[in-house]
């Protein structure tokens, strides 16, 4: 003769206990809900951000190198031969290459602006290939073209256009570079991985030489290479562009900056998840508290259940399952809320929604485990209630 409680009946008992006081159940699970929502939202937003980053990297390619002859020991820039670009192009895995050269001139809206006021903008000579190599886009007008290379025209980076107060190439606008007027033929979209180029205005090598005393030697070279050989290419380049001082050549991979920024974001993400975990812990204590209170109120029920044949274990299980259900419902609500926040964020930022299922499963699992843990002490107390005492008037 043994007491037996079927699992389905155990579950039904616990649900009945929960729904007997629905308002209290809702209030109690709010804490868990908020904690889980915070964690899911942080995971979701971070994952969506990562998806957006991967899409950006995919779009821009991670196989771009930026080569700059750095400052030598005595501060002078290494001499880069005029034909460095052509020499780099001859390296096997290099797919595309182009150079830019900084021009010693300032760009101004008109001659009422002092020549010394650079506005933080740089004038650069470039080839029409540049936009293709770094995969930039034109927001308005056109980029430099071979047909216009002898004409004083300029293309503005996005920040440069903003600072010069130019929003469109129509109607025709001119800017003063050095002492020459240049017609603006294009405005570029901003570059996610070349923020320096946003603050730059581009002229052709030919017009730079004609009007601005521009030099042909490149100050920076952009190289697209086969992604599989990119490290080998990076090793060969210094000796190619500056055979006399290869150590002064600096090679960067602009996409690395994005990855690094993301890594910094991830530190913040871990911190936020940690805060969410603290919220969960507090919520767990609240559940334990409410369960203890609830058990004091339900002594009579416990006494009756014991008189009907419940063992101490049955009483314990009933309250642990009840506590788990309380936390589980809160957790589910939190997942829905957190997913909603993520979707809202993604829609707002126009990025892909990505909510990792493993993260959701883990957070609901954590809520259930927390519920079980929070229920242990109250459940043990409930099971120790003396049945004779509980049914006494």
């Amino acid at each position, binding site marked *: *003769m*043994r*007491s*037996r*409680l*079927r699992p*389905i*009946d155990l579950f039904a*008992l616990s649900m*009945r206990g929960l729904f*007997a006081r629905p308002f209290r159940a809702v209030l109690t699970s709010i804490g868990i809900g908020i904690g889980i929502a915070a964690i899911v939202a942080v995971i979701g937003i971070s994952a969506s951000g990562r998806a957006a980053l991967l899409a950006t990297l995919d779009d821009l390619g991670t196989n771009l190198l930026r080569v700059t002859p750095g400052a030598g020991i005595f501060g002078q820039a290494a001499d880069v031969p005029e034909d460095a670009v052509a020499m780099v192009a001859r390296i096997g895995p290099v797919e595309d290459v182009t150079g830019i050269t900084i021009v010693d001139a300032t760009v101004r809206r008109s001659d009422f602006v002092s020549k010394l006021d650079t506005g933080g903008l740089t004038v650069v000579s470039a080839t029409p290939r540049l936009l293709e190599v770094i995969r930039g886009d034109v927001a308005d007008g056109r980029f430099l073209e071979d047909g216009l290379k002898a004409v004083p025209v300029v293309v503005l980076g996005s920040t440069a256009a903003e600072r010069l107060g130019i929003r469109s190439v129509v109607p025709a606008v001119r800017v003063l570079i050095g002492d020459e007027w240049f017609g603006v033929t294009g405005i570029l979209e901003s570059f996610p991985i070349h923020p320096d180029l946003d603050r730059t205005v581009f002229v052709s090598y030919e017009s730079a030489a004609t009007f601005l005393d521009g030099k042909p030697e490149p100050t920076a070279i952009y190289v697209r290479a086969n992604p599989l050989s990119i490290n080998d290419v990076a090793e060969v380049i210094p000796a190619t562009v500056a055979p006399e001082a290869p150590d002064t050549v600096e090679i960067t991979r602009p996409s690395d900056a994005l990855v690094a920024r993301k890594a910094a974001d991830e530190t913040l993400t871990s911190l936020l998840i940690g805060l969410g975990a603290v919220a969960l812990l507090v919520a767990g204590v609240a559940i334990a508290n409410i369960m203890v209170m609830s058990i004091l109120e339900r002594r*009579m*029920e416990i*006494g*009756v*259940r*014991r*008189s*009907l*044949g*419940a*063992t*101490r*274990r*049955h009483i314990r299980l009933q309250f642990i399952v009840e506590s788990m259900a309380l936390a589980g419902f809160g957790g589910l609500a939190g997942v829905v809320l957190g997913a909603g926040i993520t979707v809202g964020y993604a829609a707002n930022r126009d990025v892909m929604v990505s909510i990792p299922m493993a993260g959701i499963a883990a957070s609901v699992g954590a809520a259930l485990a927390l519920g079980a843990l929070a229920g242990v002490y109250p459940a043990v107390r409930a099971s120790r209630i*003396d*049945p*004779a005492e509980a*049914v*006494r*008037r």
Partner: protein
Amino acid sequence: MESANSNRPVVELSGVSKVYPGPPPVVALDSVDLVVSRGELVAIVGPSGSGKSTLLHVMGGLDRPTSGDVAIDGVDLGALNDKGISGLRAHSIGFVFQDFFLMEGVDAVNNVAEGLVYRGLGRRERRTRAVAALESVGLGHRLDHTPAQLSGGERQRVAIARALIGDPAIVFADEPTGNLDSATSDEIAELFTRLNAGGSTIVAITHDLEFAQRFPRMVSLRDGRTVL
């Protein structure tokens, strides 16, 4: 089979004492000997403080005696652990309480069916037997009423049906008419008599002498001792 079982003891108490530790220690039961045989209908009477409730709890295994032996349906409770006594309560003992102790907001059938939940029976069988138990206490027409929709006497009948649903060897009733008026008490006494005629063994404790006098056997308790 009836006759073979009719004299078998269902409750055997020998030298049962219960002392609540002091200071000063309170002797609630003092060497009580009592035997209830199968098919009996027994009233235990006594003034309040005479130890009636303690006696009932000790007999039903809700409480353990300080000394002495208790056996239910031939099983010595002293040899059982808490789990074993719980099993015995699930299968062999039914309880009826003064305050009914029904689940609010739950209809009569499900309240009665709860009496079988710790036997591991399926929902459908519990329900079928609950309907039969409610019919046997004359509440076949109140199956889906919640406690709030029932009168006091009807609630106590639901509680009695819950105690009887598992067909226990013994039913203990603790002041079953304590919250009922005298007309309703008479109905409950009649119900007990009828259920007893149907084979149930029932022990009720009460301080209501009029109620107790309708029982074929009466045991008086005073200061923790049985009085003849």
